[in-house]
Every structure is written in structure tokens, then in C-alpha cells.
């Protein structure tokens, strides 16, 4: 009986701790595709919803044949959208994002740190045959709500531990 109780409690604890990893898990990504002057631009975030904090993204800019642009000199900046800002409340300068080459040709990855919730613009600047071009991506960064799966998971495990312990205590008192 003692072993069984111990085994049950350990099992429930392991279950509880394993829920913690879910807090950092995401489901599907967020993708925006744009076509400007025959150029195909695609910006993909790993997370389904964009929340304040660090968000990893992949960007690719291809020509009309789907091939990477030679000597594109791609630069990415992120800034809050001030077009709807009343009286210039937002003073933040655009953040320059460091890019690294991705797994495919013409693909780059980077991390953008959205400081706060609201509308953000990610601006890509690049060269096409020596001429500077830019494509903007608009995003709505939302404040992340509570993760009910995590809260529910922990609550269930805590209740289980308490119920098992209470039953065992009752049995030992009777015995």
C-alpha cells in the first residue's frame, strides 16, 4: 500500500512538472506574404500569436521566378506604428534586427523584441539591381492571456495529490 501510494504521488508529480514545458510551446506560426512589383516577400513568426518579448522570425524575399535576389543587402527594422499615435506619444526609434542566413537560399532568420503590445511595423529594405526597395509588414502584438492548459494541469495534479493523501490518511487512521 505504501509503495502504491508513493508510486501514485510520484506519477502525479512527474505529470505536473511535465506541464511546465507546455508554457513555452507554440502551435502554428504567423505568416504574412506580400507581392510587390513582382517580388515575393514572406515573413513568418514561429508563434501563432505575437506577444510582447522576443519573437523569432524567418524572412525571405524572392524574385518573380522564386529565386533569391543577388546582392540584396537586406536590412530589417522594427518600430511601433505611430501613424495612429495622438500627439507623438511614442518616441522609440526603429530597432535594427540582426539577421542570420536561414536553411534555404534567400532566407534569413532574426529575433525581434516587441517591447510592448500594440501595432508594430517590420520594415525590410533591400537592393534590386542596385535600386533600394522596401516592403513593410504590419503586425498586431497582443498581450498574452493566461494559459488555462497550464493552470488547469497544475490544479488537477494538486487536487489529485491532496485527494490521494487524504484517502490514505483516512485508511491509516481506520487501521
Amino acid at each position, binding site marked *: 500500500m505504501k509503495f502504491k501510494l508513493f508510486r501514485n504521488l510520484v506519477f502525479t508529480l512527474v505529470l505536473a512538472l511535465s506541464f511546465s514545458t507546455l508554457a513555452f510551446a507554440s502551435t502554428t506560426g504567423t505568416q504574412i506574404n506580400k507581392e510587390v512589383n513582382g517580388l515575393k516577400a514572406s515573413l513568418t513568426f514561429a508563434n501563432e500569436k505575437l506577444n510582447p518579448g522576443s519573437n523569432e522570425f524567418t524572412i525571405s524575399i524572392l524574385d518573380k521566378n522564386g529565386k533569391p535576389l543577388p546582392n540584396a543587402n537586406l536590412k530589417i527594422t522594427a518600430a511601433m506604428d505611430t501613424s495612429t499615435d495622438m500627439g507623438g506619444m511614442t518616441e522609440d526609434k526603429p530597432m535594427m534586427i540582426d539577421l542570420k542566413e536561414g536553411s534555404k537560399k534567400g532566407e534569413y532568420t532574426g529575433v525581434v523584441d516587441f517591447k510592448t503590445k500594440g501595432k508594430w511595423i517590420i520594415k525590410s529594405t533591400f537592393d534590386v539591381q542596385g535600386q533600394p526597395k522596401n516592403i513593410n509588414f504590419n503586425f498586431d502584438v497582443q498581450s*498574452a492571456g*493566461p494559459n488555462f492548459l*497550464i493552470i488547469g494541469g497544475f490544479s488537477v495534479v494538486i487536487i489529485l495529490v491532496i485527494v490521494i493523501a487524504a484517502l490514505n490518511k483516512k485508511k491509516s487512521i481506520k487501521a
Partner: protein
Amino acid sequence: MADFKTPLKHELPSSKVKKEKDLLKNIKFKKFIKSKKYPGVFQWPVAIIFAFIVFELIAGPAEAHNNFGTAGTWVLWWPLLPILLLFFGRFWCIVCPFGFLNDVVQKFVGNKKPVPKFLKKYGIWIIDITFLMITWSDHVWGIVENPRGSGVLLLMITTAVIFSGALFERRTWCRYLCFLGGLSGNYSRTGMVELRGTPEICKKCTAASCYKGTSEVPGCPMFEFPKTMDSSAECNLCGNCVKNCPNDSITISTRIPTQELWDIKKPKIEVAFLAIVIMGIVFVQNITMLKIWDEILKSLENILGTTNYYITFTVTFFIAMLIPVLLLLLTGLIAKKFNKTSIMENFAKFGYAIIPLDLAGHIAHNLFHLLAEGKSVGYTFMGLFGMNSHGASTAILPSPTIQILQYIIIIIGTIGSIYTAYRIAKSSQTKGHPLGTSIVYAILMILLAVANIYLFSLPMAMRM
């Protein structure tokens, strides 16, 4: 439980044997400690605030700078904790909501099983490893900067505490498993308060109510026996022994900071290891908050040939932990020439001398967060009522003033560590002069202090 409250009035020695500094001589203080209100009067308000903080972390704003839970936990409580430990020993542990939760769960559904032998034997090592893992996780997943991450951490601890309280006796969690308890135990050794039994009285006592408890009050929740207790590392000043002792043997007195470390009778490698890795953790905390961290990271990426942060940070973390450990071992090797003691024995003994500098480093690092971001506690609290303080400075003091305070604290900690090393050398060395050993360890302390001061001189990033 049997009542062991049998007084030994006829055999009691005179009150002269009691320490002069005994705070329990103050009748009002003693009455308060012995009353049913203590420690509940502290536990309940803290538990209510804690519950609200957990709610804020898991359901409040997702941005750290808007979340009262983040500000309350990492800007207020975490920086204040080492200061509380210095002044009041492990008093925080009796107020701690996790310990209180353990007591409540135990009262209603506790099975009170004895502590498994492996926990008794390897408890401190488990604490050491957990502490390292949580620090590592914080840097990789951003627990501190992410309210949801902090919330999950608190929920994990809550679950583990309920598990421990439901299954095991007393405060098994606090004594053998809590990583904060391990840290608090180490810092409390330098603390200014100590609770002890009076040897002349205790030696005649056979009741041991302080440990076993009485029908009214349980025994020591931390498995301590005041009769033989020579350290404040595990005493949370719960007052149970004061309430239970039929002979008024217990004293609570003030002492000189670091005094307990001067004569450690049975030094433990795991305690020394925790002390030295805390120094490494303070280094990691400082380095990753510095603006040069990005450059260091880029260099590491080039050396390792990967941009994977898990790998680059793990390597940094490992090196930061390894350097202080190797330095302490190396110092032990040099000191061996003077004190003819083995390297591991020196490691275990003189590891305790690092604790004052650890504490100073911890206080100094967090002083930046407390004083440069302290107002965020008020702002986020106002935010709960819809009041916006967007753009307002969170600083209580200007950065140069905070830096000077940090340097002063490190210097005080270094003096404490050097003096402690000298006292340990003096009390443990039978052959030769302790000066040689003391100088060797003084050089190590100065080296660690210089590294700390250099890191504090660089611009640091904020938490909020």
C-alpha cells in the same frame, strides 16, 4: 503526542549562565514569541500577497514592466531576501508562503512519513543541482523577464511543496529540497541572530520537547535539536522550541555577522560547493545583464560554430561555474603547503569563508534592481487600479550612487570573507602559523572581489 512539558525547576542553574544578549529577556518579546499569534500574524498576510502575486503572474499583463507580480517578486522580494537573511537569519522561511502551505496541507491530509534516507544524505546536493538548473532555465527560457515563466516556476514549487507536505513529516521540503532554503541556510550562517539551547540546562533535560513537540505545539519543523544545535543554517525562528521548552532553556541572541563561520566543526563539501557556485551564479547574472554580453555571445558563436543559444549559454554557464570552483581548489593546493591539509579538506573548510562575499555579491547585484527599478513596484501597483505611469523613471537613486553603494558592499563582504578565512585558519591549524594560509585565501577573496567590482562598474540592463 505525549506531553513532555515536565519542568526541571529543582535542577535549574542560575540565570547567570544565560547569554546576556538574550532577546527573550524582554518580557513583551517573549510573550509575543510564545503567543498563538506568532508566527501566523506574519504568515497570513504574506500568504495573501503571495496568492495575489501568483494570480498576477499567470493571468495579469504579459509584459514584465506592467506586471505587479514581476515587480513584487524580482524587484522587491528577491533583492530584500539576502538583506533579511543577514539581519534576521532564516526568519523569512517561517514567513514563506511555501512553508506555510506545507504546514496547512500537512495539518489536514499529511501522512507524515519519515524522510527517506537518500534525502537526508544527498539533500544539499539535490538543492545545489536544482539551484543551478533553475538559474540555467531562467537564462534560457527567461523566467524572470517573463511573468508567465515566473508563474509556472511558482506553480511548480507549489505542487512540489503540496506533494512533500502531504507525504512527509515536518518541513521536509524546507530542510531537504528547497533550493531557496539551501541559499538561505548558507547566508544565515553569516546572519546576526541565533537561537540556541543553554547547554547547562539542556544537558539535564530528558524530555526533548523542543524536538518532539507537545500536545499543544509541534516539535521543531526543521528537524533541529536546540540541545546540540551549533548553526543557524536550519533554524527558521518559528518559536516552537521556545513555546515547548519547560525549562526556559532557549535563547535568541544577536551576534557579530560571520561569527558562526569562524569555527565550523564539521565542514561539508556540498555546503562549500554551494557557496562557491553561488559566486559563479552571481557572475553569470552580472555578465548576461551587461551590454558587452552580446559581443561575448558573438565571439562564442564564432568559436563554437553555432548560433544555438542553448549551446552557447550552457558553455558560458559551465565556464562561469567552473572558474570559481577551480580557483578554490587551486587555492587549497597552495594552502596545503602551509597547513598540511588535503585539498578537499581545505575546499570544504575554506568554502565557508566565501559565504560573506557571496552574500555581498548577491545584495550588491540586486541593489541595482531594487534602487534603479524600485519605483516600478509602485507603478505596477497603481496600474492595477487603471493608473498609468508610462515613461516615468523607475529609479529611486541615480546609477552612480548605486554603483558606489555596490562597491562599498563588496568591500565589506571581502573584509568579512578575509577575516573569516583567517579565523578558520587559526581555529583549524595546529602546525605552523595560520598567516600563510590566511594570505593565500585573502588573495583569492581579493581576486573575486575585483572581478565583482569590475562587473558592477559596467552598464547593466534592467529586469522590468
